[in-house]
């Protein structure tokens, strides 16, 4: 009892002490107009000009710090309250839901006219429960890379079935036709979703429903069955299954041992540096007439909840992501912008990778940005991997995966 009394009396005196302190430092911060931007690695060139202009027009000092973008939200958790955090940071679109629940990013007050310049899917990734939390800066999607020394552009198979036939003809001991990392949901979803599979169902407003999992519905099953035959017939070697698979796949392509692979725009530079004579295009069609789908990854600028100059940070965010600056950034960094008008802009249209990503984006879907998605990756990949290695049949494996996902969502997100 006395313990409770003591803690209550302490509770009475604790916060007052800190109240004065925080407002004091807050007032001091307002004086200096300084902003910090966390930018992706080696992407500063893309925004330097815009930042200089913004500094001049608004009389602020802006510091740009480079950090791997997928890790920035992680760093914000400690740097934010520590007072060394950014005002504007770069994030992956599928992390937004988690960040909003934790309260790490601020809602951004941008009107319809600002939102409307971006492609729908990219903008949608920034919206949680109808509120906007950032602006998209770039989109990514998996595309098809093909080796021009092995196949001419006009001979490219148009459907996945034709690629399957092509692989059957050309695959020998160390030469492969078409390869993809279909043992991972990130890539396999391209096929499964084309047949009607989905991860989480959506309501009419585009909100995801974590209780409606479509990974074992008929479409997903059909897709998984289709995927399985590539492995069963050894068109995909066992060496590209699992953790190290991506390295093997990429080195097979750079060595000219694979005609075509599915990969992302992040490989343009490495493949160019390796001296591969390659071309890029959208993913092939499926035999039901649908185009293969893909996940679009959205990179965005967001305002930290810890920002002391939130209004200014918001202005900077809108400025950085506007049409003109998005174009400049594309020219410097080759990151495909999410601004709709730029898709037909000559600068973008002339770039093969941007063209391929833009074309594929039409058939692409967003990675669900709700926290329950964190529970999907591992079990779904496990199921696909067991399908690929022939340890389980698709139906059994996918049912089990869904069960695991449901269990994990219940265990970690239940009651929320």
């Amino acid at each position, binding site marked *: 009892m006395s313990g409770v009394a003591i*803690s209550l009396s*302490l*509770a009475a*005196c*604790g*916060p007052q*002490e*800190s*109240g004065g302190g*925080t407002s004091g430092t807050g007032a001091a911060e307002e004086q200096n107009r300084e902003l910090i931007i966390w930018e992706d690695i080696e992407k500063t060139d893309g925004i330097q000009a815009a930042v200089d202009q913004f500094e001049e027009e608004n009389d602020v000092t802006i510091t740009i710090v480079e950090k791997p973008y997928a890790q920035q939200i992680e760093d914000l*958790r400690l740097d*934010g*309250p520590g007072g060394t955090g950014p005002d504007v940071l770069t994030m992956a679109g599928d992390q937004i839901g*988690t960040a909003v*629940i*934790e*309260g*790490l990013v601020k809602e951004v007050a941008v009107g319809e006219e600002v939102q409307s310049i971006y492609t729908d899917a990219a903008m949608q990734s920034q919206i949680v429960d109808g509120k906007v939390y950032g602006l998209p800066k770039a989109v990514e999607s998996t595309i098809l890379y093909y080796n021009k020394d092995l196949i001419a552009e006009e001979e490219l198979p148009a459907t996945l079935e034709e690629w399957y036939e092509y692989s059957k003809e050309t695959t020998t001991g160390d030469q492969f036709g078409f390869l993809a990392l279909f043992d991972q949901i990130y890539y396999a979803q391209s096929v499964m979703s084309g047949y009607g599979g989905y991860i989480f169902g959506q309501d009419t407003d585009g909100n995801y429903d974590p209780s409606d999992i479509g990974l074992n519905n008929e479409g997903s099953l059909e897709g998984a069955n289709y995927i399985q035959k590539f492995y069963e017939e050894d068109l995909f*070697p*066992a*060496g*590209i*299954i*699992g*953790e*190290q698979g991506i*390295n*093997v796949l990429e080195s097979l392509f750079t060595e000219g041992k694979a005609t075509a692979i599915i990969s992302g725009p992040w490989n343009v530079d490495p493949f160019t540096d390796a001296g591969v004579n390659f071309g890029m295009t959208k993913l092939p069609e499926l035999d039901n007439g649908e185009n293969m789908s893909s996940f679009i990854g959205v990179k965005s600028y967001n305002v930290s*909840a*810890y920002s002391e100059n939130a209004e200014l940070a918001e202005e900077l965010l809108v400025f950085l992501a506007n049409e003109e600056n998005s174009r400049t950034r594309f020219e410097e960094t080759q990151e495909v912008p999410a601004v709709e008008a730029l898709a037909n802009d000559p600068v973008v249209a002339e770039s093969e990778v941007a063209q391929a990503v833009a074309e594929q984006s039409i058939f692409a879907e967003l990675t669900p940005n709700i*926290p329950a998605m*964190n*529970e999907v*990756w*591992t*079990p779904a*990949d*496990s*199921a696909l*991997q*067991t399908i690929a*290695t022939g*340890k*389980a049949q698709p139906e*059994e*494996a996918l049912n*089990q995966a869904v*069960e*695991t996902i449901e*269990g*994990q969502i219940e*265990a*970690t*997100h239940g009651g*929320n």
Partner: protein
Amino acid sequence: MQARKLALLLSILPGFGQFYNKQWIKGLLFLGFGISFFLVFGDLLNMGFWGLATLGTEVPRDNSIFLLAEGLIAVIVTIFGLAFYYVNLRDAYKNGKLRDENKPLSSLKRDYQNLIAQGYPYLISGPSLFILIFAVIFPILFSFALAFTNYDLYHSPPANLADWVGFDTFAKIFTVDIWRSTFFSVLGWTVIWTLVASTLQVALGIFMAVLVNQKDLRFKKFYRTVLVLPWAVPGFVTILIFAGLFNDSFGAINNDILAMVGIDAIPWLTDENWSKLALILMQGWLGFPFIFLVTTGVLQSIPEDLYEAARIDGASIFAQFRNITMPMILIATAPVIITQFTFNFNNFNIIYLFNGGGPAVPGSTAGGTDILVSWIYKLTLQSSQYSLAAALTILLSVFVIAIALWQFRRTDAFKEGA
């Protein structure tokens, strides 16, 4: 009333007992220390205890995790304060007692000399004790405390507060089906991995050392250099190279080595049991040079006349090894061998770099080769289950500490050393 009791009573306010004993300077010192303690740490103690008790009441002003850390520091500072307070009481009581017995009080100078003479070891080790408490004890306390909160994605600052939940998180590990089944399968493999991989590397190291140490063997330096090489190359490079070598379709082990002797390709990375074997073999390769070196050192120090006597008595080579070499090695290297076991229990690098805990196992949230520590890593990074990870870490530490203690107590090395 006796002077000792009055002095003790008075020094409830630091220094006043000393004033009563007419030790003015000492009293002032104690009083000064007492007052400055509260001046300096008053805010910290106030906020710290409040934060520790409530973990914050208002968002976004309060950050539960920071409050928890502040609270723990406040507890540590309080313990320092209490220690000082105890010294104050004890000094007043002792001098009061001297007065009761009509003996002269010790002067400040005498006290100082006493302190220097008797307390010297404590004075010298004081700073390192201080560092120890903040650099070692504090982080452990912190992660220990986390396990009793509900700190996860939905209870993390700045949007939400964490709360104390007692043993709920521990209970969950054993009551939530998906966690219980994964926990026990991961634990099982962790134990097997620890025992087999460590035993292999120790046995291999000792075997090689004894072999190379044979008296008539030539080119000893060459053999020793070669055998130390696996240890000389940084582990993470070796592990990544091995990951390539073990690749099912393209790796040199399947394609060149095994194919040469006519063995079919083995699914090293896609079959759970073969992956486990590959990991154990790799750890044997990576780990034996260290044991080899230590054992080589021990072997040099075994007196040759022991063997001579054994030979005269007609002992076989094997008997000599069993009764002379092996016991000598074990006595000298037991602590080192135990560290090999505890190290492998938490050998995160090899699992993470080789195959990330894969291959996938149907119906489990951990991969086929995930050990506890790599599973905890996945839980923290993928699902933001911080409190669960902290709870598992405690369980894991209990295992390691228990095994280490049990083994240390059974070995002679420490009895003799202490």
